């Protein structure tokens, strides 16, 4: 299955990536190869196999509704490049 340059541009926009024309073509080819790979796999008859969302044979793992201490507030933003008064600062959104 082939991907168009427009598809690459759409995905790049969602991922906030600025791509050059050459890069667009490179990724167009690579992404098309990935989808082609998936297409080949999809030829296997899986009509009798339930879809796998999880690889572990586990369900119902819960925790009790009990509170635990949160991080000290001065530590929360200690790794943030930009913060003020305990809040994370982010550049203008729109």
């Amino acid at each position, binding site marked *: 299955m082939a991907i168009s340059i427009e598809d690459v541009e759409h995905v790049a926009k*969602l991922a*906030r990536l600025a791509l050059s024309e050459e890069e667009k073509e490179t990724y167009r080819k690579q992404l098309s190869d990935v989808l082609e790979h998936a297409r080949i796999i999809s030829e296997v008859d899986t009509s009798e196999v339930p879809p796998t969302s*999880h690889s572990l044979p586990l369900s119902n793992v819960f*925790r009790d509704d009990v509170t*635990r201490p949160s991080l000290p*507030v001065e530590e929360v933003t200690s790794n943030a490049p930009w913060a003020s*008064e305990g809040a*994370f*600062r982010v550049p203008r959104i*729109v």
Partner: protein
Amino acid sequence: MKLETIIGLEIHAELNTRSKMFCGCETAFGGPPNSKTCAVCLGHPGSLPVANREAVGDTILLGLALNCEISPRSIFHRKNYFYPDMPKNFQISQYDVPLTRNGHLEMDVGGKTLRVGITRVHLEEDTGKSIHVGESGRIHGADFSLEDFNRAGIPLAEIVTEPDLRSPEEARAFMQLLRATLEYLGISDCKMEEGSLRCDANISIAVDGQLGTKVEIKNMNSFRALQRALAFEEERQRFAIESGEKLMQETRHWDDASGTTHPLRSKEEAFDYRYFPEPDLVPIEPDPAWVEELRGRLPELPQARLDRFREQYGLAEETAAMLTSEKALADYFENAVETGQDPVELAKWIAGDLVALLKEAVVPVRSCPVGPRGLGELVALVAQKIISGKMAKDVLKEAFQSGRSPAEIVESGGLSQIADSGEMEQVVDEVIADNPAAADDLRAGKEQALKFLMGQVMKKTRGKANPEMASDLIRKKLSG
């Protein structure tokens, strides 16, 4: 051309668990920014979420209350998006296999019973709060934004209805019934002003049975705002259709101050969520015994209680609806009924004066200074003609403010009516002697004069005369 309004709602209710959905941070409202966060709800690398059993149980309970099917197997999905209010850049939500689906809620509105379909009730995590800093104070033109993740990760139940509502009034009535249902179940604080209960709406106009273009409205923070926003949008769309304009499928923002909706920039909703199963959380397969245990916990729900109040106590629909809109209020009423007083009278006092006093003082009914027994006492005093209905209003107010019992207030304050016929006769004689013209008028059959004389009697007794007794006495003295 026949136009029909079609409305569906999407409601988010924060669940009132003690800890967050996937970590142990506490959920209480407020506090300094990011004081209730940890590696899990901040999305630090290597941290792993574990689902809160209580939140799953609450959602199943809600599903049962809304007559939904409980999915035998349900999974979480990641909903990916670019917006800084989730540190992980995705929200853990549910997609194609929600915990519960295919339900309905029946409600009485405008004299008919309406059955509103419930598409699904699923469980997700709430997002953080953004404060946009800059001259505008809004997202547009902000210099930067501040992110507080105290709310991020609080369990959130999402309820989606079928497009079964036909007017803004029906939408509001549904929302009120749903709020009451959540409150009866005790699983959410339901505070629209604090954002623990939120509502978005989809509205379109069908033309001659042909479905129209759907518009989503956001930012309605009260029942009134919901109804106003839908009424505005209904009018806007009908006008566009009637003048041959084309409507756009879009998301619009309700502005409560101007009373209008306006489109959000398409940039803000260029979403492609790329849902995929959350690999860090295992599927939920509710044990049937657990579901039955939850079913056993279902209380009598608002509509059922409303119907019972009408039948058992003979209340009018409006009064019954008012009393059952809040569980604590309905409980108050039924406790008051146990005092043996007339349920209709008790309901009248609660729905009228008492609710007004509570509202004015911003006191929840649970902490009402006049308890159900106190109210029963008040109604008994009126029934025994010890005080008039008018005086009872003052006694109730005094009891509400001082916390003293109505009987005590009547005793000590000398508020008891003058029901002694000798004392009353003396007052009436004096009033007639002082106002001979009015007395003549009444003798001549002018009913207006009775009102005037009654006023004089009340003035002389400072409102303590039993009105029935006084007017009987005046008539007796002046007839023939």
